């Protein structure tokens, strides 16, 4: 049953750029997108930093060329990133092959619901916000924007969501249910998530410092990223070009706590282990790890222990790119998939910004400047609330 599955198109919008070329430029210039809050309405806008997309909703509507008032920020950015991925891949959704859209989100339409919720009890003007509150809305918007989509579904497993969307897409191709799938995730910033993370006291008021001894928490970001994945049969049929191959993936559960990771990173260790087993690679064959690395004391320590459990004293070069984009929640894993493919294509490791001192318990030191080195294999981790742990392994095509 198993045909190989390739990534053939990239699309991304986040704090570091409105498309993939802009994102690559920021990454290769070590330029973060995290800064002062401009678009999100919150009383804390001068106290915290965030990785905002630098466009207003009006700008976004212009870019997608659609003034439908039902569209919200989540849908706009999802549509843009998905379209970029499809154009980049060169697939034609009208050619009779089976195309799927598998997206993921945690916040869905809440960013708009929170603006009008109380008003809806009094006035009729914004009652249609009810129709776009749920997670499926942006996925169906993507499907209709692309046209001729045979299959849609949406996943929400907190901060590991997009990794699971990518995994499901690969599985559906291998099981012969689809020929190619547009997979990824989206989360726009909202007052709801901002206050949620603030209440958990895991937001850093300054730039986040993943894997630093003195890290204080994460910076929230927003974004959408999608990749086109294709089975080798469909790819060969159209003589398309592969950018990378998805050679391993795994989904496990930490089953330790609703929001915290186990100290030893048990679920994470299992996910990395299982993804490696599937890829047939040994730990020493992994050239670089794009870490989950949120910058919270709990995640980074737990992930460091999981990394040492698998790689021992030969930990590959690694970095977290969340100090560029902020933590984009459901979109994080697909944004980091795009970044990983850019790393493979350009033989570049993008730095772990803001790092100075290694965590005392583990002594792990990430790459802190741009590294030019040939890369053949990359491991990408994503972990989330509810103990959801996912790892993906990509190989240069």
């Amino acid at each position, binding site marked *: 049953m198993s045909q190989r599955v390739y990534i053939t198109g990239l699309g991304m919008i986040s704090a570091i750029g409105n498309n993939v070329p802009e994102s690559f430029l920021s990454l290769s210039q070590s330029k973060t997108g995290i800064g002062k809050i401009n678009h999100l309405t919150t009383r804390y806008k001068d106290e915290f930093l965030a990785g905002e997309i630098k466009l207003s909703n009006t700008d976004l509507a212009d870019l997608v060329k659609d003034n439908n008032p039902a569209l919200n920020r989540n849908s706009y950015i999802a549509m843009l990133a998905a379209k970029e991925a499809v154009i980049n891949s060169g697939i034609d959704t009208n050619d009779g092959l089976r195309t799927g859209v598998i997206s993921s989100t945690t916040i869905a339409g809440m960013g708009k*619901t929170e603006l009008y919720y109380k008003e809806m*009890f009094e006035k009729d003007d914004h*009652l249609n916000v*009810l129709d776009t509150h749920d997670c499926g809305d942006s996925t169906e918007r993507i499907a209709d924007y692309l046209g001729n989509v045979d299959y849609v*579904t949406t996943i*929400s497993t907190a901060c590991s969501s997009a990794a699971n969307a990518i995994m499901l897409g690969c599985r559906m191709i291998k099981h012969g249910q689809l020929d190619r799938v547009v997979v990824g995730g989206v989360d726009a910033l909202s007052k709801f998530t901002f206050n949620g993370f603030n209440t958990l006291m895991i937001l850093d008021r300054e730039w986040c410092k993943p894997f630093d001894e003195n890290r204080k928490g994460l910076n929230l970001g927003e974004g959408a990223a999608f990749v086109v994945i294709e089975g080798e049969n469909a790819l060969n049929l159209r003589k398309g070009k592969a950018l990378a191959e998805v050679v391993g993936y795994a989904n496990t*559960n930490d089953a330790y706590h*609703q929001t915290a990771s186990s100290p030893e990173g048990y679920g994470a260790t299992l996910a990395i282990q299982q993804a490696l087993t599937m890829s047939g690679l040994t730990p020493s064959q992994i050239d670089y790890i794009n870490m989950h690395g949120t910058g919270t004391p709990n995640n980074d320590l737990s992930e460091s222990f999981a990394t040492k459990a698998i790689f021992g004293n030969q930990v590959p070069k690694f970095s977290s790119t969340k100090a560029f984009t902020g933590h984009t929640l459901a979109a994080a894993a697909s944004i980091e998939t795009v970044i990983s493919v850019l790393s493979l294509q350009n033989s570049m490791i993008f730095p772990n910004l803001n790092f100075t001192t290694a965590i005392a318990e583990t002594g792990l030191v990430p790459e802190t400047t741009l590294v030019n080195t040939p890369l053949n294999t990359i491991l990408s981790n994503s972990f989330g609330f509810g103990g*959801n742990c996912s790892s993906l392994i990509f190989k240069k095509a």
Partner: protein
Amino acid sequence: MTKAYINGIGCISPQNSIDSEWFFDAINPAKGDYFDAIEPSYKEFIAPNLLRRMGRAIKMGVAAGNIAIQQAGIEKVDAIITGTGLGCFEDSERFLLAILNNDEQFLTPTSFIQSTHNTVGSQIALIMKCHDYNFTYVHRGFSFESTIQDALMLFEEGKETILVGGIEEHTPNFVVLNRRAHKFQELPSDKPIWKSTTPGIQMSEGTAFFVLNKTKTEKSLASIDGIQTLYKPKTSADILNKLHSFLKLHNLTLADIDVTLMGFSDDVNFDQKLQELLPSIEKESIAACYKNVCGEYHTASAFAMWTATKLIEKQKLPKVLAISDKAPSKIKHVLIINQYLGINYSFTLLSQC
């Protein structure tokens, strides 16, 4: 083709489905224009220290999951897959209102923590100490269908036992807003649900969980032979064509289907294609409905699957579900044709095993 054998079921709905003996004998009508689920005494299923903090969706999900697991007589599963359209809406609303009422101050994290859509699946994993595969689908009328599609793939990938479930809850405020938005049937209709001439659904909530097994055991109640989702089919003829191909894949025709459970929702706009389809179904099979009993929600298809399993177990079609005048002489194959908002359609085939 891989099948999934249903070895345990648990269902909380507006009816007394929590009682394993209940078989559509006493029916609770809607509360005016919507349904509330009948919730059990949770103490039997959930430890008191956990129960205190859980929102309704979590309690309903964990309890129904627990019932299914007990019935299957198992202690561990290889995967937990949940589906929910709106997730833990009560907790989401509680945190949202706290933000709005207090201008983002004096917030506590509990309701935020529990507001994530994967909370039910992860709570079950925590309780069962299940470190294995854990997925949550959140796509409208495909949320529950996706769990079954995934489970069937996982069986081919080597898993043996999987817990799947659909979960939906509403809140009093959400009911008010949906009524204000004219989503409900405004006047009680004397027409049966499959003959609606007016827009509006009867909004509802509920949860149904299933323990699925790769191989048949003495506990097996029925098998799930296949499932297919259709996104925005253009016409009822399209649906019928796809249905014939779906059945052909399983070496069946419509005439082999003893009961076809159809997802009429009482909204004439959403039901239009099913109304057009009904004569073709009735010509060869026996048509029935279920949303007159469970109401409409994103994962109503989980209630439909529970119903199909019961029909196969009892070999009887309750009068309250029947659309066709004919009674089935046997119930070997049950087909579910669900629709949600006239956008998300699905076929699910269950068989006696």
